[in-house]
């Protein structure tokens, strides 16, 4: 059991929540991720930015082994969460994904009621002992996702009947309900209008207190607004990573500079 944050004995500083070393990803013949080394800090929001097809979503999907579901995808290298290799044969991806939740680009509520959407995760992971437990988890998760007030009177209506932004917050609530430690978000606002986007961004900021959040985004403004650290990907390479402020004001790499000033993208 490992309940204390892992401490690097020598440096006396907090070890990163997630650390990736020499990660390579292949899609069949395509080399999608090349030699990526990256540490992701606990309880911060880390944004992955970069042009389309740069591998940022692919890398994100390595962090909870969602790439396992794609037959032709192969991952090499070493990714550790709390110091444990998540690609170790002994690791069950099911348990891993309970610890590392994910929110997708398009809101994808299940064709079930709002309540059942949230309760789905806790049920399969056996997180509740009674109906009351489950009710509490659902209410809690919805509250944390800022959706509770809007839906509390219609929990048994289908989740697909909500608006786009509400659906996405439902998906976030659904992820929170399994009490993950890390939440991965793959362009969570790309299908939403600006008002809904603002609400989600606000929510991400609140969630930062309790969760490690990694967000892939196309929008540099969004990265600047919600994240503390930013990683820039280009053509499967991690170009640079650092404090968000640093990256946006004073990038070290030429390519980052070009990207954030809109010269390509």
């Amino acid at each position, binding site marked *: 059991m490992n309940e204390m944050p892992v401490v690097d004995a020598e440096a006396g500083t907090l070890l990163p929540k997630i650390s990736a070393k020499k990660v390579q990803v292949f899609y069949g013949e395509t080399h999608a991720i090349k030699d990526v080394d990256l540490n992701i800090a606990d309880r911060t929001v880390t944004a992955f930015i970069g042009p389309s097809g740069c591998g940022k979503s692919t890398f994100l999907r390595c962090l*909870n082994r*969602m790439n396992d*579901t794609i*037959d032709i995808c192969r991952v090499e290298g070493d990714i550790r969460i709390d110091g444990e290799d998540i690609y170790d044969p002994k690791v069950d*991806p*099911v*348990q*891993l*994904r*309970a*610890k590392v*939740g*994910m*929110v*997708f680009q*398009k809101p*994808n*509520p*299940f*064709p*079930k009621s709002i309540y059942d959407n949230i309760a*789905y*995760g806790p049920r*399969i*992971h056996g997180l509740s002992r009674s109906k009351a437990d489950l009710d509490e988890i659902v209410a809690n998760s919805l509250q944390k996702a800022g959706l509770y007030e809007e839906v509390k009177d219609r929990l048994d209506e289908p989740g697909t009947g909500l608006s786009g932004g509400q659906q996405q917050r439902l*998906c976030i609530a*659904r*992820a929170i309900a*399994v009490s993950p430690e890390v939440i991965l978000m793959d362009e969570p606002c790309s299908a939403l209008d600006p008002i809904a986007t603002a609400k989600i961004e606000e929510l991400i900021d609140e969630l930062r207190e309790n969760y490690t959040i990694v967000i892939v985004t196309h929008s540099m403004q969004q990265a600047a607004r919600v994240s503390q650290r930013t990683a820039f990907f280009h053509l499967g390479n991690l170009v640079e990573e650092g404090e968000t402020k640093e990256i946006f004001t004073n990038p070290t790499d030429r390519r980052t500079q070009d990207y954030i000033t809109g010269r390509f993208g």
Partner: protein
Amino acid sequence: MSLPILVFVLLALSVAGYVLGRGRAMASAGGDARKLHSLPNYYGWFGFLVALLPAALMLLLWLPAQSVVIDTQVSAMISDRSAAESSRGLVMSDVERVAEGLDLAVDAGVLTEEQAASIRTEFTDVRERLGEVGVALGSDVTSETLQAAQRYRALSSTGDLLRTLAVVAAALAGLAFVYRRAASTFRARNAVEAVVRWILILAASIAILTTVGIILSLIFNTVEFFSLYPAWDFFFGLTWSPSFGGGSELGILPLLWATLYISFIALAVSVPIGLFAAIYLSEYAGPAVRAVAKPLLEVLAGIPTIVYGLFALLTVGPLLVDIFGDGGVLGVGWMGGGTAVMTAGLVMGIMLIPFVSSLSDDIINAVPQAMRDGSLGLGATHSETVKQVILPAALPGIVGAILLAGSRAIGETMIVVLGAGAAARLSLNPFEAMTTVTAKIVSQLTGDADFASPEALVAFALGMTLFVITLGLNVIALYIVRKYREQYE
């Protein structure tokens, strides 16, 4: 002129129309095709169609009209007395047979045309004379029948002559029209395209005509059946025992029961296997396995039903008897003979496996990938995702697929004809022989029954019931499946 020759002449006139149309147009343009409104061939086709279509239409209308007119004229000659003895329809078919025999006799040179028109039963044994040319008659020809037959022949030959004249006249009128119209300014392409468009519409309407034909042929005969046999007894009778001597009991319930029982067993076999196979192939199997197993399973769907029927009768039936019959492996003695509800149901189930699996496969694949990702991303296992997310999402579609499979099972004929048995029975024992609606349609219409008897006509009432049930199931199923598809499009 006989019909084939007439058709040939008509086609020849149409070809003449092609040559005429093209030639006239070219002539009017002084041989320069560029001055024509349309390409020269369009003028040709215009000529062809104008010569052919009105005449062909006339011919198509003429054929049934002539036979109706002759029938009414000739049947008026049959006295009510002989019509009362058997049915008017039977007398008429005798008349037609005699007329046909006379035709054959003339062709064979046994009779001259005059003799054929003038022989009398009083002086000639017509039955024997016709027997010589190979027309066997069931009974001696009465004078009345013979006269009716001669009248029939006379009317037919007049009718054929008029038909020829009318059709050729129509074709010639078409040619005259082409001669006048085919000039360089005439918009031949537009005219031809308009006609082609109508031909296309006509072809598409055949689907409607087929349905109308099905409904009419079922309704007319069903109504006739109900005039001979009470509808109440048909729909609610518990006994099915046709006897061609009369006094049949023709209750549909035992047949319907067996039909549903067999369909139920067939679905009980095919739905779990088909559905699980579809889930495995679309969710678990690698591309290599899928590429081999899917087409192989679909081979089962391409095998004709007669093969399944034989398989039921000769293989599965005896096998089941070895297990469940007297002195069988289990020693239970539930099964008397190879043909049984279970035999037919099992084999039909095998036949339906690919039907269920390929429909379910389509439906499962229509569930968006995002749904799977959402569930897997929460840490659900694959089977949890399938059971709790994909199947509920696909449920309407799968229900539709099962209804379609059920409608298939209800309408299936060869397997039950060979595998289910021939005795109608209301029983719960699936190892007993029972018989179904479709099997009885076959047996009532393939015997030597008099076509006008209730025992034969009941087949149409059975067909009507079958049609209504399957149509209902199909409409509901197709509606559900379509709604389901729209949801994810």
